[in-house]
C-alpha cells in the first residue's frame, strides 16, 4: 500500500493506493494522527485506487471520526469510493457517519464552506 498526502491548507488529501487491511491500517492511522498533530482536522480520503478494505481499515476511519466529533472540529470525508467498498461501510452501518463525494472539487467545496 502507498499513501500520498497533500496538505491543501483548508483540507488534507490522503490518496490511498492498494489494500486496507490489518497489515496496512496502522500506517493510515499514523498518517491521520500526524495530520491532527499538525492541526489539520479536515481530511479528504481518495479511495479510487483502493482495491479492498477490511473491518480493521474501516475502524481506523470510524475511530478518528469519533475523535473529531468529540473535539467538535474537522471531519473525514471520502471521494471516489467503489460500490464494493461502499457496501462494506453500509453492512456495518458506518456509511451514515461519513460524507461520500464523487470528486475532489465537490468535497473541497464543502470544506471551504465549513471553514468560512
Amino acid at each position: 500500500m502507498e499513501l500520498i498526502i497533500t496538505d491543501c491548507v483548508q483540507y488534507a488529501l490522503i490518496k490511498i493506493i492498494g489494500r486496507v487491511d490489518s497489515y496496512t491500517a496502522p500506517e493510515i492511522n499514523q498518517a491521520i494522527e500526524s495530520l491532527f498533530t499538525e492541526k489539520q482536522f479536515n481530511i479528504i480520503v481518495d479511495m479510487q485506487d483502493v482495491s479492498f478494505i477490511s473491518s480493521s481499515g474501516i475502524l481506523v476511519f470510524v475511530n478518528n471520526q469519533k475523535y473529531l466529533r468529540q473535539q467538535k472540529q474537522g471531519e473525514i470525508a471520502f471521494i471516489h469510493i467503489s460500490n464494493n467498498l461502499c457496501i462494506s461501510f453500509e453492512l456495518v452501518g458506518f456509511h451514515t457517519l461519513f460524507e461520500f463525494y464523487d470528486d475532489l472539487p465537490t468535497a473541497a467545496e464543502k470544506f471551504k464552506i465549513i471553514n468560512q
Partner: protein
Amino acid sequence: MNRKNFPGNYQSLALISDYIVLLAEEAGFTSSEVYAIQTAVDEACANIIDHAYEGENIGAILIEVSEKKDRLTIKLKDTGKPFDPDDIPPPDITSPLEIRKERGLGIFFMQKLMDEVKYDFSRSKGNTLTLIKYKGE
C-alpha cells in the same frame, strides 16, 4: 481440492486474498460475490491471528478450497486456542457513534457475506472454520 499453507501474520492477508480471489473467479462467481468471499476470508484470517494465536507468527493458517457445481467451500484451519465465532456477541451497528463499541465486526461480515459459517474444534486438529458460498444467490 486446493490447499495452501500461509504464515499466521498480517503480511499473509494480501497473499491469501490473491489466492482466494483467483479460485473464486475460476469458480464463476460475479465480481461482487468474489469481493464478498475475499472480505469474509480476510476477516476470518485476521481473527485467527488476533484471537486464536493472539499475535503474529505464532502458527500457520491452512486454507482448503473445494468447488462443487453449486458452491465454494473454504476451510480455514489453525492450531491456536479454541475460538468459536458464535461466542462473540453481535456488534452494535445502530447506536450513536459516540457510545458505540466496535467489536465483533469481522464475524458480522463473515455471517452477512457467506451463506454458511461453521466452526469446529478438536484437541488434535485445532480450529476449523468452514465458509460456504452458493452460486447465484
